[in-house]
């Protein structure tokens, strides 16, 4: 079974393998975060040295982005897209298989830097030139970190190509592009972003590696352009699939087809276009970008983001909403991500950004989008599709406890950081003077981070308990599935489908239920059968 997990090319196994890798890296990054929060709980250096602190925040940030959130986002696409479009396998299955191994390999290469004399990467996750260059950050550990990120990123591009090809070439008969499920549309937008922007990181880190070994190519401004041309779209790669999960959970558990589907799709494509035009807002303080242009493209994101929120809330509106654990996480996502979104509009304005940039305000902002937002969206998705993937349900009681603790811990950790940043606490400080009066808020934040850790332990307990439970999930586990993955058994067979229903809309199973209720005869044409 272990061999199968490591060497199967079934897209479901490949996706689960990536998820297992990411889960381990997530735990490691979480431990790094706890050590940092412990160090910051009071002034003075008690736990780690300054060098150690730089290693911790670099490894925490880069692990979470390169090894956890992006691979999980793409892994979810890899698992769900073939099922949602009604096909047996991902396009380029062996490529996707190889990409998942690159994730594990690249992650190990990044973390192996701890074994070197100088330590691992320690120039921050965006590794600005010239700090990340060899004279300032010498040692093989930093080189290993750069190489590891390169391996993982190449893997991400390959995965995105496979998913996109599946979306374009392997849809079931009848499934036009405008009948793709909502999650699959978010996957499509995600893949476009990956394919368009991730090569820029490969170039930036490739040149960084060359410069570290004697070339003189990069400059501080050109590096930042290359990096953020990747870095900003990457934010949406870490967002779109989780919006898709929230949208699917909202639809299934309110008994309604997703509201405003076409407008949502158009908004998503607009979102994609704008998000590759907004990178310069990370560079407002450099004095080397046209601030008004990037304020325009960044502030304009209000429109597609506002539409997506509207459509998700409108799907719940007038529904029959079931408050199972997935719905709790939908609510948590909607209420918390909006804080990240609104502070995002705040930092899109150059004059306001100047105060927030590189301060704890920005740390709080992106943790509200990535943790309070994307991670809650991910948990909505995990609780929703767990019975599909495993045939077993996650415990409702443990799930509620997990949710409650996670809401408490998340807000306790990150809300105080807005105030700290506004008051002048820069990010990446190993220490701060007692006279600043930041001790109380920092201590609260530290307590919050440990509450998050407890919440995640509860989740692990729920997973363990589920593994011991019998398989009881029906094909349509929640009794309200809209899309094709709820047509096949839970878990799906290796070939995914024994048969397919007709696809006449973006909610084919809903259509079937309505037809049965209305006693309308089935439309002409046989069911599509695949062996």
């Amino acid at each position, binding site marked *: 079974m272990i061999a199968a997990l490591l060497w199967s090319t079934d897209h479901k196994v490949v996706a689960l393998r990536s998820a297992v890798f990411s889960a381990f890296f997530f735990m490691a990054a979480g431990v790094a975060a706890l050590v940092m929060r412990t160090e910051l709980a009071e002034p003075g250096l008690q736990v780690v040295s300054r060098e150690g602190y730089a290693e911790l925040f670099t490894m925490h940030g880069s692990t979470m982005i390169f090894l956890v959130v992006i691979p999980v986002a793409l892994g979810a696409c890899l698992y769900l897209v073939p099922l949602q479009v009604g096909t047996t396998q991902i396009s380029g299955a062996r490529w996707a298989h190889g990409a998942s191994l690159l994730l594990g390999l690249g992650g190990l290469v990044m973390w192996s830097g701890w074994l070197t004399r100088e330590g691992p990467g320690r120039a921050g996750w965006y590794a600005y030139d010239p700090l990340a260059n060899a004279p300032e950050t010498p040692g093989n550990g930093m080189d290993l970190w750069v190489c590891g990120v390169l391996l993982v990123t190449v893997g991400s591009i390959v995965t995105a190509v496979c998913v996109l090809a599946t979306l374009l070439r392997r849809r079931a008969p009848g499934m036009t592009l405008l009948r793709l499920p909502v999650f699959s549309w978010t996957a499509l937008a995600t893949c476009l972003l990956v394919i368009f922007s991730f090569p820029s990181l490969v170039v930036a880190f490739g040149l960084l590696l060359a410069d570290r070994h004697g070339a003189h190519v990069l400059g501080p401004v050109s590096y930042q352009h290359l990096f953020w041309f990747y870095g900003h779209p990457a934010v949406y790669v870490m967002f779109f699939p989780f919006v898709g999960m929230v949208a699917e959970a909202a639809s299934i558990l309110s008994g309604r087809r997703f509201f*405003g589907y076409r407008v949502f799709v158009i908004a998503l494509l607009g979102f994609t276009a704008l998000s590759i035009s907004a990178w310069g807002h990370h560079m407002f303080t450099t*004095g080397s970008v046209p601030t008004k242009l990037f304020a325009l493209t960044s502030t304009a994101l209000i429109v597609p983001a506002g539409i997506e929120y509207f459509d998700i*809330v409108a799907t719940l509106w007038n*529904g029959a909403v079931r408050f199972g654990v997935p719905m709790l996480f939908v609510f948590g996502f*909607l209420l918390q991500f909006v804080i990240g979104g609104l502070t995002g509009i705040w930092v899109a304005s150059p004059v306001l950004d*100047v105060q927030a940039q590189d301060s704890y305000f920005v740390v709080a902002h992106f943790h509200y989008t990535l943790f309070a937002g994307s991670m809650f969206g991910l948990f909505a998705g995990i609780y929703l599709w767990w019975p599909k993937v495993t045939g077993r349900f996650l415990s409702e009681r443990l799930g509620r406890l997990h949710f409650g603790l996670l809401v408490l811990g998340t807000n306790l950790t990150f809300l105080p950081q807005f105030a700290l940043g506004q008051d002048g606490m*820069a990010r990446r400080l190993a220490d701060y003077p007692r006279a600043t009066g930041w001790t109380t808020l920092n201590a609260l934040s530290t307590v919050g981070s440990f509450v998050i850790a407890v919440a995640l332990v509860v989740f692990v307990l729920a997973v363990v308990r589920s593994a011991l439970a019998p398989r009881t999930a029906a094909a349509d586990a929640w009794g309200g599935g809209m899309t094709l993955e709820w047509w096949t058994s839970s878990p799906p067979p290796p070939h995914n489908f024994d048969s397919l229903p007709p696809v006449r809309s973006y909610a084919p199973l809903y259509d079937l239920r*309505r037809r049965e209720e209305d006693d309308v005869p089935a439309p002409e044409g046989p069911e599509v059968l695949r062996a």
Partner: protein
Amino acid sequence: MGDTRSTYGDLARVYLPVALVVFALVGMALAVVALRFRARPGREPSSRMAAPRLEGAYIALLVVVAGALLWRSYEAIADVGPVAPGANRTIAGPPTLTIGVIASQWNWRFTYPGGVSRTGDGRERYPVLVVPAGRDVRFRLSSEDVVHAFWIPALRAKYDAMPGYVNVFDLQFRPGLDYTTARCSEFCGTYHDQMQFRVRVLAPAAFDTWLRGQATA
């Protein structure tokens, strides 16, 4: 021109209420969903899939809000003056005083007209930026090694110091603000947290006396 603190405050007073209203609207909508649209026996979910007119009006509203915020942001940019590389910078009126700022790991050097230069020891004795109160001071900011950032939180002012680039900007200093958190805010290596500086704001006459005293010393 250089009154960054007031410009920031005025703009924040536009953005903050908008943000709070949006948050409240999302919260209220979700409260209604939880109270009114909860699944119960006999409750039939609506089968409606779109509301084109409502959506159109809503999108128009989003565009108006985004446009209004952007318009106010542009005004604020004009007030502060864009931070721009030295050559591109045009400011009405001659500057009365230009201070050069050189950032380096992990220290600051401030240079004044007449060859006056002030720095710290990069450890406990932080460098002190001495400035006159109430009038525009022009800064020319650069770095000797890696990217640093010159941040005075009390003034809501922050600009990057980059090797090979000079950033030029104007600031106005008011006495009585808390300047003790002024520092480097871009991670610049091991002692980044120690790369602080202090600001001493003098009355214009006292500043001129101080500068003359430094020049002759």
